[in-house]
């Protein structure tokens, strides 16, 4: 299967050049700046005014984009189609959610100093041990990265050690997130069951219901995305990145030239999971709720679709895809509520069939042409 796919995908080759990255980061920061200015400087009611709702929306898109980048790292470069990345996203989100719940303190409807509301009316008399420490920001934020990282480490260790590959891996990642969804739905788990965690008040002392905080979160997400992107780029352009691509296309071969493939897979998988967790943590305070539906396998598949649509193994493609799809969702669900699923479904079908390299594929082709010229000149000199 690997070899099959590789032949059709050898275009996924050039590690990102300096310039792509510069362009991407440039565009990103320009966008951040623009939105900020239009939100703060432009008076309300003015056509150019960007209201808090929109800022918040963009913030959400950006966190999705970061998630997509994380998925692209493992799928695009490592060839691991994870249908369970929603799980890492959600766990990161829950870690943040737990912190925000603790921040509510005694301002809950029951005014209980320690227990969140849902625990009070489900008659919990004390805080379960795994909620300890989440009143401290540093601990919670550490957990945002560590919890998903740890899960990925254990799961990946088992899976890669025993060389579960291809579809099998995809399916058990799906099983993982499905099992977690069911588990988090259980109220005994102490994560609020189906209602999840909500009614957040403040983050690091900033009121979550003020527009400035929203703007802040939006910018923070943008920066996080930039950093995540830079990190991923560093990885994929390093020799390690090339080992990943090698693994993706010919795992056995990579072993025979002496690379312990499973360790490389594990390393990248964990990094990706942590990024997903970070994305989740930024997502939650912006949408104001985290509940087990983020674990649903369908969501995880959707993430993969963003990446596919944007273009695998390009990183920026993932970002484009995530923003495009979710923007489309927002528009469609508003404009044609009854029919938007048709549009979404059709989009997925058409892109996979007609545009297998995603939106980024077009750009890539141009790059490849340039590259060939360079190659041919090299030939001449030789």
């Amino acid at each position, binding site marked *: 299967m690997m070899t099959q796919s590789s032949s059709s995908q050898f275009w996924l080759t050039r590690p990102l050049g300096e310039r792509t990255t510069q362009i991407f980061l440039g565009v990103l920061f320009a966008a951040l700046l623009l939105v900020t200015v239009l939100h703060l400087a432009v008076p309300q009611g003015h056509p150019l005014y960007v209201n808090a709702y929109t800022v918040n929306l963009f913030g959400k898109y950006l966190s999705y984009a970061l998630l997509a980048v994380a998925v692209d790292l493992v799928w695009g470069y490592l060839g691991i*189609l994870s249908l369970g990345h929603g799980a890492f996203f959600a766990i990161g989100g829950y870690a943040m959610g737990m912190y925000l719940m603790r921040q509510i303190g005694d301002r809950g409807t029951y005014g209980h100093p320690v227990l969140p509301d849902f625990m009070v009316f489900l008659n919990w008399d004390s805080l379960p041990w795994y909620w300890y420490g989440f009143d401290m920001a540093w601990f919670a934020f550490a957990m945002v990265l560590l919890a998903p990282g740890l899960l990925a480490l254990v799961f990946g260790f088992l899976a890669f050690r025993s060389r579960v*590959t291809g579809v099998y891996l995809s*399916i058990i990642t799906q099983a993982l997130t499905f*099992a977690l969804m069911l588990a988090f*739905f259980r109220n005994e788990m102490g994560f609020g069951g189906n209602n999840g965690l909500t009614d957040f008040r403040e983050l690091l002392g900033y009121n979550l219901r003020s527009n400035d905080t929203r703007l802040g979160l939006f910018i923070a997400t943008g920066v996080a995305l930039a950093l995540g992107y830079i990190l991923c780029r560093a990885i994929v352009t390093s020799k390690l990145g090339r080992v990943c691509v090698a693994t993706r296309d010919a795992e056995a071969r990579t072993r025979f030239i002496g690379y312990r493939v499973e360790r490389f897979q594990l390393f990248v998988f964990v990094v990706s999971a942590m990024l997903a967790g970070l994305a989740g943590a930024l997502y939650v305070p912006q949408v104001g709720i985290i509940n087990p539906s983020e674990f649903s396998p369908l969501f995880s598949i959707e993430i993969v679709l963003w990446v596919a649509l944007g273009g695998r193994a390009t990183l920026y493609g993932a970002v484009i895809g995530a923003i495009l799809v979710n923007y489309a969702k927002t528009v469609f669900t508003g404009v044609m509520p009854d029919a938007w699923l048709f549009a979404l479904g059709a989009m997925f*079908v058409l892109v996979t069939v007609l545009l297998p390299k995603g939106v980024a594929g077009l750009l890539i082709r141009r790059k490849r042409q340039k590259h060939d010229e360079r190659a041919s000149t090299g030939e001449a000199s030789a």
Partner: protein
Amino acid sequence: MRRFLILGLACLLMGWLPTAQAQQASPDDSAALELLEALDVSSYPAKGEAITAILQSDDERARDWLQALLDGRLQRTEDGRFVIVLDNSGRNWPVEDALTNESLGEMSRRDLNRIGINNALRNQLRSAIAVVDLYSPNVDRRRTSATRLLGEVDEELAAPLSELIAEEEDGQVQRRLAQALAIYQVESGQLEGVEALRGSLHPRARVALSRAANGDDPIVADAAREALASIEQNLKINRGIETLYFGLSLGSVLVLAAIGLAITFGVMGVINMAHGELIMLGAYTTWMMQQLLPGQPGLALILSIPAGFMVAALVGIAIERGVIQFLKGRPLETLLATFGISLILQQLVRTVISPLNRTVVTPEWMSGSLVINDALSLTLNRMVVLGFALVVFASLMLIMRRTRLGLEVRAVTQNRAMARSMGIRATRVDIMTFALGSGVAGLAGVALSQLTNVGPNLGQNYIIDSFMVVVFGGVGNLWGTLVAGLSLGVINQILEPWAGAVLAKIIVLVFIILFIQKRPRGLFPQKGRAAEG
């Protein structure tokens, strides 16, 4: 309700027989009207009295009235006439006069007031009718009424009951009545009753014994305890069988849902996320067939087996031609494209048919359960589905093993180029295979329509489980799918009682994950060089 039994039997002793009634001249309708008017009161106890009165009155229409009352079809018009509604669906209902039985044409539900009853009255009516039926020439009626007597007997009843037992010619009725009598005896602390109840699995009997076991009379108590012990033992065994059956029937559902996938996914390597929606289409086909053939749910169901297969197969072909053929050798891409398709199909059903669930009627021969004994009865609909699953599986095996298509399919999957060069039309084989897989999904839908709701979300609930089953069993191995499905079903049902439904499912999933670690290619992996990626 005992009151009415007694009364019934009292009448019997007075030589009253409903059958005898028929000859007598029918009383004038004013009396009858009074009887019915007594029913049209708000208080339920009063209605109870009225029912008694009707029962006591020697009117041969009594049974019809009571039956109509029981079915909520005895109603009263604005102008005070009592009518029996013949069909209470839609806005206007055909009615007939309760007294004269003459048809009054259609009436609007606005002009009719139902004479309401509640469960208590319903019980009362059932018993009343049962008592009447105890003397009916119809054996089945006698059986049902005899069964109702279990645990309802008291001393006034004991004496006449033993006479009845003597007279009764039908063995089953006799046994039932004897049990009923024995239960009464045990409750009243007589030893012979205990003996008679030994080994009886009927809950009433068990309750009676356990009460006796804590009774004052030591002899009876010991005997009862002893009897109980053996019963409990017996119950355990039955429960074990029951759990196994539950497991197998759940397993059969999983197998049905997964087997089509085992073909498209296992044999063709296409990850068809729209598989669930193909199942859904099968279920909707069943619904449509039942709409087309109103009143014959059974026939409709039978017909929808080929219909469901065809519909799903055609859609399958459309998918294969329209999308999948362009994604040769990109299995993971097929996942994405077909996911889009599944979204479209779902919303299509929502907009074209309805977002609401559709009613699919269970035909007579599939409803209820097969009574093995008082403690163990197997639900028929699931038994049919179980059988159906096995048949589908067997025929698939035949197709794969014995037919030309099967041969070609295997050839193409093993070495496409070679198969081509040997003159096999690979594209045609692809279409056929995918159609087959999809068609089987349709069959699964037909079966599921008898177990769960027929709605737009039907497919989503099964797609993930299906993938688990196929992967657990080993991709490309139909036997694997069968074994995997059934075993997962049984495991789940064994876990459920002590772990709870949710936890059981989680445990099963974790089990699958760990299992895949141990055997990365499932229960029945394909070995050899061919299998190396």
